[in-house]
């Protein structure tokens, strides 16, 4: 047996038994979580031994999912002998779930490696508990993606919400973190109720809750619309779509960094998966205005997230708002795809959907990377406040270099991965004038402009993020003691950074994986003109892009220039104090701050914020400048709802008199009422 043959044999085995392997991996996750209890207080055992095994399991998930995508065969289904009597759990592996499992495995491997080196003893909950929640969280996300009936889906979905809630509140002694966790739990359950109702509508009178029954149900456009809107609210609350985004900037900073990375990089993607599963697979009716709705919500979320990210002073809140932005971009792609699909422009629908899928994959890589970077910075400096950081590129060269890759990727710059998906999205926007709705096709190009604005604003945000943390002079004297990340952390960061580069340089593979999904959902694939060298999603003479040649070209020109400059001139360098226009009394405090960097944005997008500002008076002896920015949605929607719920509860509490005789009267009246019904 020669070598290539054995590889194809392994692939054949993997693709034939994909679900069995995946189930084994999910069980392994749970086992890993439970094994922590053998030595519950040993961080060395739980983190350094169990988490690396988790990494291997993640890689296994990625391999199985990747093989299934590459073989692009028929969906694999299985009925588990678990669940309620007569209601066994169904699971299913098809290209859509494989794509998201691939994402989960690849990014999860990096996060688990990092987490192995990250957790310290004596911080937050006991190591064993942390390990249990962490691995159950991973297992439940995989189960959400595999589920093929509403029961299993909801069980997995709730397990995911609960395990992540416990992870968010692992530093539960801090009151803000408990509050953030509570808000997250409330939003997660509002979303879950909507999803539950959505499944109730989707079964279409058959009262069978397997996804197969839902695929077969024939729904009227009105019922379909109800299901779609419920799904949009339910999954939108999880994904952080404006205005259901309020939990995100609270919960992400509260969680330990690997957990923030998992929530932002992976958990938000399960919501994207849910929207795709319901709108492209389970629902057969699709109306064009759903696409418009998603497009508008997506673009608004994207712009909103980018604007808010630009004015943040907490590095993890900044990234959380940036997640809202990226989720907005993904929803924009999905909306565009629905719009094209309902206008019978199937090729462009596939293009937009590919853009959304690849952006999901990219976001899993670069946002996880950046959240993990904030973890390293947090450990090294003990602060999340951008105003107390600076100059870390000299103290933490490894983290700084890997963070630079993430920064350039998320800023959407070629030849990194963020650019690929944004380019595909812009390409699909170009075809909107062909949509046969007169007003839509004039307004949608403006959406492309909003998209360009968002993408460019994201670059602004990331320059702020990277520049203030890593560049310049340290803003606090304590920063000279900052230390670089340990080798496990570097390995995890490096894996994710490698992913950012590889997807950017060789987008063919990501496009191929997305093509398997679009082929399955829309019977249409893009990129017939793509080769090893470049991608050309529609036609080579229309538009093409090659990250590989771009990178090679820039590197070779840089190399040649460097050598020529050294040969023809010289390479002498003299180190001196900075020139700084001849002003020698500069201090690090004179650098631009995070607030200063946000100032143009506050000025231009003032309508987005509710701003409180205390300006110092000329007569103040100790002048203090304070600025507080608030989300308008809080006072606009959430506080009124909270107040009315409180009021309603107070009104109902009149019933609760505290006297036994009254309560007995209630029981009696209820009985009477029931008797009336029965008779």
């Amino acid at each position: 047996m020669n070598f290539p043959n054995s590889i194809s044999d392994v692939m054949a085995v993997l693709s034939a038994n994909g679900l069995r392997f995946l189930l084994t991996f999910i069980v392994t996750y749970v086992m890993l979580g439970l094994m922590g209890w053998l030595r519950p207080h040993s961080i060395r055992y739980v983190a350094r031994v169990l988490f690396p095994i988790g990494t291997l399991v993640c890689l296994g998930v990625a391999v199985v999912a990747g093989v299934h995508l590459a073989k692009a065969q028929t969906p694999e289904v299985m009925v588990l002998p678990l669940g309620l009597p007569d209601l066994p759990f169904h699971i299913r592996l098809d290209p859509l779930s494989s794509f998201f499992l691939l994402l989960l495995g690849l990014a999860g491997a990096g996060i688990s490696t990092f987490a192995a080196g990250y957790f310290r003893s004596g911080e937050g909950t006991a190591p064993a508990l942390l390990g249990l929640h962490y691995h159950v969280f991973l297992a439940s996300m995989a189960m959400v993606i595999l589920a093929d009936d509403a029961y299993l889906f909801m069980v997995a979905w709730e397990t995911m919400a609960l395990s992540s809630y416990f992870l968010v509140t692992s530093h539960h002694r801090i009151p803000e973190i408990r509050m953030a966790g509570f808000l997250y739990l409330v939003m997660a359950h509002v979303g879950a109720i909507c999803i539950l109702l959505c499944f109730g509508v989707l079964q279409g009178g058959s009262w069978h809750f397997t996804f197969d029954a839902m695929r077969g149900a024939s729904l009227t456009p009105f019922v379909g619309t109800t299901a779609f809107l419920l799904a949009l609210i339910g999954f939108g609350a999880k994904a952080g779509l404006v205005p259901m985004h309020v939990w995100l900037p609270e919960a992400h900073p509260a969680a330990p960094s690997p957990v923030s990375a998992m929530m932002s990089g992976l958990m938000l993607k399960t919501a994207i998966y849910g929207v795709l599963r319901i709108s492209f697979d389970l629902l057969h009716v699709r109306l064009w205005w759903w696409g418009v709705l998603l497009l508008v919500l997506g673009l608004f979320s994207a712009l909103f997230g980018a604007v808010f990210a630009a004015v943040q002073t907490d590095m993890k809140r900044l990234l959380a708002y940036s997640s809202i932005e990226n989720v907005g971009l993904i929803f924009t792609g999905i909306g565009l795809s629905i719009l094209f699909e309902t206008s019978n422009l199937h090729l462009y629908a596939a293009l937009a959907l590919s853009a959304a899928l690849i952006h999901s994959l990219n976001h899993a890589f670069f946002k996880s990377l950046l959240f993990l970077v904030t973890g390293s910075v947090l450990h090294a400096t003990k602060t999340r406040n951008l105003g107390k950081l600076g100059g870390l590129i000299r103290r933490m060269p490894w983290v700084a270099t890997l963070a630079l890759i993430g920064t350039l990727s998320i800023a959407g710059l070629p030849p990194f991965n963020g650019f690929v998906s944004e380019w595909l999205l812009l390409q699909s926007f170009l075809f909107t004038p062909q949509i046969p709705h007169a007003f839509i096709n004039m307004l949608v190009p403006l959406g492309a402009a909003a998209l360009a604005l968002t993408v460019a604003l994201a670059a602004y945000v990331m320059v702020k993020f990277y520049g203030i943390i890593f560049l310049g002079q340290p803003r606090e004297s304590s920063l000279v003691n900052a230390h670089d990340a340990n080798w496990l952390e570097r390995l995890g960061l490096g894996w994710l950074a490698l992913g950012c580069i590889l997807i950017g340089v060789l987008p063919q593979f990501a496009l191929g994986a997305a093509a398997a999904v679009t082929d399955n959902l829309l019977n249409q694939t893009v990129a017939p003109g793509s080769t090893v060298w470049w991608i050309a999603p529609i036609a080579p003479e229309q538009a093409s892009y090659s990250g590989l040649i771009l990178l090679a070209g820039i590197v070779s020109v840089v190399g040649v220039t460097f050598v020529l400059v050294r040969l023809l001139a010289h390479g002498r360098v003299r180190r001196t104090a900075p020139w700084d226009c001849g002003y020698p009394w500069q201090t690090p405090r004179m650098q631009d701050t995070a607030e200063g960097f946000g100032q143009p944005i506050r000025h231009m997008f003032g309508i987005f914020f509710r701003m409180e500002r205390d300006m110092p008076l000329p007569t103040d002896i100790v002048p203090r400048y304070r600025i507080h920015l608030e989300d308008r949605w809080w006072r606009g929607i959430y506080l009124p709802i909270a107040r009315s719920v409180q009021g309603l509860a107070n009104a109902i509490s009149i019933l609760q008199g505290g006297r036994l005789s009254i309560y007995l009267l209630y029981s009696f009246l209820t009985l009477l009422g029931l008797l009336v019904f029965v008779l």
Partner: protein
Amino acid sequence: MRGISFLRQFVEIGLAIAIAPLFSGWIAQCRAWLQSRSAPPLWQPYRMLRKLFHKEVALATDASPLFRATPYVLFGTMVLAAAIIPSLVTDLPFARVADSIALIGLFATVRVFLSLAAMDIGTAFGTLGARREMMIGFLAEPALLMVLFNAFLLFGKTALPSLVEGSSAPRSVVDPSVIFAAVAFIMVLLAENARIPIDNPATHLELTMIHESMILEYSARHLALVEWASSLKLFNYACMGFALFAPWGIATHGADGGAALLLAIAALIGKLVIAGTVLALIESLSAKLRIFRAPEYLAMSFLLAVLGLLVHLLQGA
């Protein structure tokens, strides 16, 4: 045949690198004439580069490798952009590497790297400049994208060589949307290349600087590369404008022999001379805007491009 097209590609890159400083010099000369000053000689930019390359680099003590690598990255990216934009011929092996939207991405790369480098030393002016540059950048990008949208509506492509071949086909009337788009493009070009009315390339007042304040800490060969990259950026923008709005003389596919190449070089130089004069005229006739008027300026450019789009769509309707 393949070898010939690679040869043409390298001729184009070489020409771009060689004459980009000359183009900046020509604009400076026209400005001097228009302002009744005695003009510096045309080859002054080359003298400057030569002087800078032979000086010793005075590097701030805390400068990180990012600061030292940035000039090379800027230069490399802009040379690659010059290779992609069809300024002489359309049959370029490199042209398929990036379409016009990806070119915007390349320009954004340059902007981000320069801003990061400006923040590296941690001086007040550097970070100020970085912030302003990124602000101008994110306002200019939507306008530029709308211009490309216009071009796409006319020819159904975003790859620049295909655009040139599409637009050099004879037509009886000029589409009115082209005029809107061209004006919008010129406005973006001025903003993105740090020229009046957004920024003044000749200013010595640090508080009003954008581009200049970002490169205050650069010296010698680093400064030379940054300056060269900036002039290449201006050259690239000009060539992109020619490809979109004035593709006359560019040797198209199939008609690109030696004579056509010479003709294309002559046409390019002619267009650059005219474009330089026009730019100098605009710069001399307008005043620099306050930094917070810049959004209005760029919004106007954006609206013009959108108007062009609507004009085209309404015509088709």
